[in-house]
């Protein structure tokens, strides 16, 4: 056990301590700051600058909006898809693999596919569709950038939610459904009183795991809007501070805020859905 704990500690603590270290230092590599020469201690200046920057709160809002919307979309559609896929049908195996396949596409690739194939306002499929109905094509990534990103990310995570929820639905004892049928519960009530509570734990798992990954969504923004048009999340803001402004100290302070945000979100989630786990 000891080696594993040690490895995990190193794995987690080294980046954390480095981030904390940089967040209290002035570190602008392009202005001649070097690790070797020693960095100036600036106290909490990076923290207050990051917090008081005009982009901070909007980026937190964007992050929460994207995470929240994607969670709602993937869980709702995931439950519906899982119910559909649970029905016996011809070609079940192939359909299930197809449903899961978006998950195997790299985020950068899928975002590019969406950007070029669907959302391009000249030759994208959506543009053709809009023109077919005589409407003016939407400039997806500039006019409704957050919605576009939500759509792309939801498409990527829907398979994951569907897969987990499908296995949960399959584990439901069919006699329970039959019993509720005999007890006089019509289809919708069977869903509400029997299937949905049975899925509670699986939905909790989906929400918790997805939140962890969704808070860090990056590639989808990088290759589509590049953080413009209000689509800048906290993760993206940190990236910009470190790599575009070349301000490692400021970015590191942002990283610490990201950790705090993640913990607040996790705390809320555990409060809301976590009780499902200890049945």
């Amino acid at each position, binding site marked *: 056990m000891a080696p594993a704990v040690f490895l995990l500690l190193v794995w987690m603590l080294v980046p954390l301590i480095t981030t904390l270290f940089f967040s209290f230092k002035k570190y602008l590599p392009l202005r001649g700051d070097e690790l070797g020469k020693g960095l100036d201690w600036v106290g909490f200046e990076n923290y207050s600058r990051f917090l008081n920057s005009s982009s901070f709160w909007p980026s937190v809002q964007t992050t929460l909006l994207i995470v929240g919307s994607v969670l709602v979309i993937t869980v709702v559609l995931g439950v519906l898809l899982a119910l559909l896929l649970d029905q016996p049908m011809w070609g079940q195996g192939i359909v299930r693999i197809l449903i899961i396949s978006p998950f195997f596409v790299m985020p950068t690739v899928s975002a590019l596919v969406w950007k070029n194939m669907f959302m391009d306002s000249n030759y994208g499929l959506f543009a053709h569709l809009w023109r077919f109905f005589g409407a003016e094509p939407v400039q997806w990534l500039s006019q409704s950038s957050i919605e576009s990103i939500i759509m792309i990310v939801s498409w990527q995570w829907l398979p994951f939610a569907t897969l987990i929820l499908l296995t949960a639905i399959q584990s439901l*004892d069919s*006699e*329970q459904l*039959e*019993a*509720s*049928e*005999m*007890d*006089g*519960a*019509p289809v919708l*009530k069977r869903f509400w*009183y*029997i299937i949905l*509570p*049975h899925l*509670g734990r699986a939905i909790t798992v989906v929400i918790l795991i997805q939140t962890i990954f969704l808070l860090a969504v990056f590639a989808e923004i990088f290759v589509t809007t590049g953080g413009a048009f209000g689509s800048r999340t906290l993760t993206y803001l940190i990236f910009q501070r470190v790599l575009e402004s070349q301000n490692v100290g400021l970015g590191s302070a942002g990283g610490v805020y990201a950790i705090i945000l993640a913990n607040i979100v996790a705390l809320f989630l555990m409060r809301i859905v976590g009780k499902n786990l200890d*049945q």
Partner: protein
Amino acid sequence: MGQIVLKKVQKKFDDVEVIPPLDLTIEDGEFTVFVGPSGCGKSTLLRLIAGLEDVTAGSIEIDGKEAADLPPAKRGLSMVFQSYALYPHMSVRKNIAFPLKMAKMDSAEIKKRVEAAAEVLNLTSYLDRRPGQLSGGQRQRVAIGRSIVREPSAFLFDEPLSNLDAALRVGMRMEISELHKRLDTTMVYVTHDQVEAMTMADKIVVLQAGVVEQVGSPLDLYHSPKNKFVAGFIGSPKMNLIEGDEAKKHNAQTIGIRPEHIAVADGNGEWSGVVGVSEHLGSDTFFHVHDTGLADMITVRVEGDVGLKYGDKINLSPRQDLIHKFDQQGDRIV
């Protein structure tokens, strides 16, 4: 109030005929047991009555009303499942109240009925627990509670005791019989265990491959089985079936004699053999007798303990008046 009449009921799964056209009447207030080996179609028959499977052809009348096309909830029946099928996320109270809630009954009435049912089934102190915190027998009682609150015209039981251990099974058997006496409602009970069938039933329906072999009271079936299958299925240990010369002496293809109807003779009995395995139950002893020249093995019941050991010679004399005779088709010769 709870008569169930099946007329020419037939069930096919694709092209496989599981139940060939079948007629059966279950009288009001009767405790009817469907019994048969596994795969004989007894559960399917019960599910047809419940409405969980659709009949391929034929009609089902419940309380004189045609019910074959009604959904399960509209048939006025309730069912206890083999796995109990309790709703794990609801408390015992909510489980029992569920059918009433679905029927949109008002909450004061629901509370009254749930508490009355809990009282009858000794569940009062468990009402706020979850099914997961209960023992097998208690879960069974919750399942029964959930089915009695609706005051159905008949109860259906699908092998409800097969998940319980032997001691509990005997206890629950008595409780269900007791409940039947008290409620005086039609009950249809499916089991593969002929002891359950014998001890609980007013009427036993013996099924084999979807066909009703015999319908009758437990003692009817015991004393005059209609054919070889029923003879072999009802009674424990099984009836000895003997073919060949011994049967010809009685002008039959096969004769049957129950283990309890063979006596151990002191000197020269009619048959003789060698004692094999013996099962000692204390009150009774069952000997497996080999080398009789009649069949591979003859089972004999002896009251109490007889000092016979493995390999001993034994003389047997069957009670001539209790020998069952069957013809070539396996039907009883009267």
